[in-house]
């Protein structure tokens, strides 16, 4: 479903990604963990071309991200993204946040887009908040609207960039519950996360990144239970 091959990216002289290769199977959940500044978020941004890579290749659902003839919109329709800061559109209701891209990018009729949006808002537990504006919603509710908004493009892959990091600890659970439900439906997901419990429980594959490289990649049981690399052990001993 998703492959990165020998991806490199520098910002100026700073090499952020140094030869990243990664495969995510359809219907599986890949969690990327690691310290701040290790390049985790940049990996996600390479997948939907928010960041242009310097070399290597990224293929999503058979579409090459590095092929200049592939239009941004054709790629981004396949890839949903959820941000740490939610980034809801503050001048629109929750419903309009969710219907906007289906109407304007996918070209759905207004009625169809609304039906889809109401179904997705119900799915994230916010059917009754459709008319609320982002400022009237809690952080957890905003993030759930943002998940519905990304799902409304019916993407092949969902990217979560520290989706719970901006939330109070007691409300991360409501967002994680939605993410777990998506995983249970076999949504292909790549999650940059600091929620080790979530990674352990939900991931099929966990990747530990540090300083622009993948240090270790394993099943959650193996990576959390018996990490092979010293760097991984040192990191896990601090966060667990």
């Amino acid at each position: 479903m998703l492959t990165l091959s020998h991806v490199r990216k520098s910002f100026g002289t700073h090499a952020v990604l140094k030869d990243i290769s990664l495969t995510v199977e359809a219907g599986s959940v890949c969690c990327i963990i690691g310290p701040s500044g290790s390049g985790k978020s940049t990996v996600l941004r390479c997948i939907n071309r928010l960041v242009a890579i310097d070399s290597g290749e990224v293929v999503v659902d058979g579409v090459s991200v590095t092929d200049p003839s592939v239009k941004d919109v054709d790629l981004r329709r396949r890839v949903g993204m959820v941000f740490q800061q939610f980034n809801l559109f503050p001048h629109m209701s929750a419903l309009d946040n969710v219907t906007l891209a289906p109407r304007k990018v996918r070209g759905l009729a207004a009625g169809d887009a609304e039906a889809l949006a109401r179904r997705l808002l119900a799915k994230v537990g916010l059917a009754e908040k459709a008319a609320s504006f982002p400022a009237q919603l809690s952080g957890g509710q905003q993030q759930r609207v943002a998940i519905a908004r990304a799902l409304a493009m019916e993407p092949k892959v969902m990217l979560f960039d520290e989706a719970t990091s901006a939330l109070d600890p007691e409300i991360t659970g409501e967002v994680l519950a939605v993410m777990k439900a998506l995983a249970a439906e076999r949504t292909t997901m790549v999650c940059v996360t600091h929620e080790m419990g979530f990674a352990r429980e939900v991931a099929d594959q966990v990747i530990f990144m540090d300083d622009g490289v993948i240090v270790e990649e394993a099943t959650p049981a193996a990576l959390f239970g018996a990490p092979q690399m010293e760097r991984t052990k040192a990191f896990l001993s601090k966060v667990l």
Partner: protein
Amino acid sequence: MNASFESALPALVRGLFTTFGVALAAMVLAVAIGFAAGIVRSLVPRAVDLPILAVIEFARGIPLLVLMYFLFFGLPQLGWRTSSDGAAIAALAIYAGSLGSEIVRGAIASIAAGQREAAAALGFGRLQALRLIVLPQALRRMLPPFVGLFALIVESSTLASLIGVTELLQSIRNNVERDNALSLPLYLTALAAYFAINYPISLASQNLEKRLA
């Protein structure tokens, strides 16, 4: 030849209407210039932006009166005759438009980068994102400074009297010339009139700023 204050009033009212007419026309043009330049500036790469910025800095850097003299007295020598009203409106529009372009560009730039990123991730093109997501938010931030800009245009429109536009100040001066004894009441009227126009505008701008913040 003596004239009473009352007999001056019709001329003052005509002058007031001219002031409003000139200011409104200049404002409409300034908003158009401001939006065109501000939006283009926020879309184009830096190399293209620099010459636009140079023009804007030039327009902002010259005194408004010099610009009016140039348009009214200078341009006719190139065979381009300008009416005094036209030259005044054009000069005010160029001056206020250069300020307006900064208002528009600044408001667009003030919208969080995350909004653009979210729009891009959803598949919106740059223009679509600007029209549907960035501009509607930026408009709210532009409103107070644009209202303030209108007050500045009203104030600055008094300079138009120096190229022969009979706006409020000039109509007062005409009446003072007819009867010097009316100097004090007439100029007091001028003070009161400009204050009465601009103070509510300034209040509205501050009020909007508070409410939209």
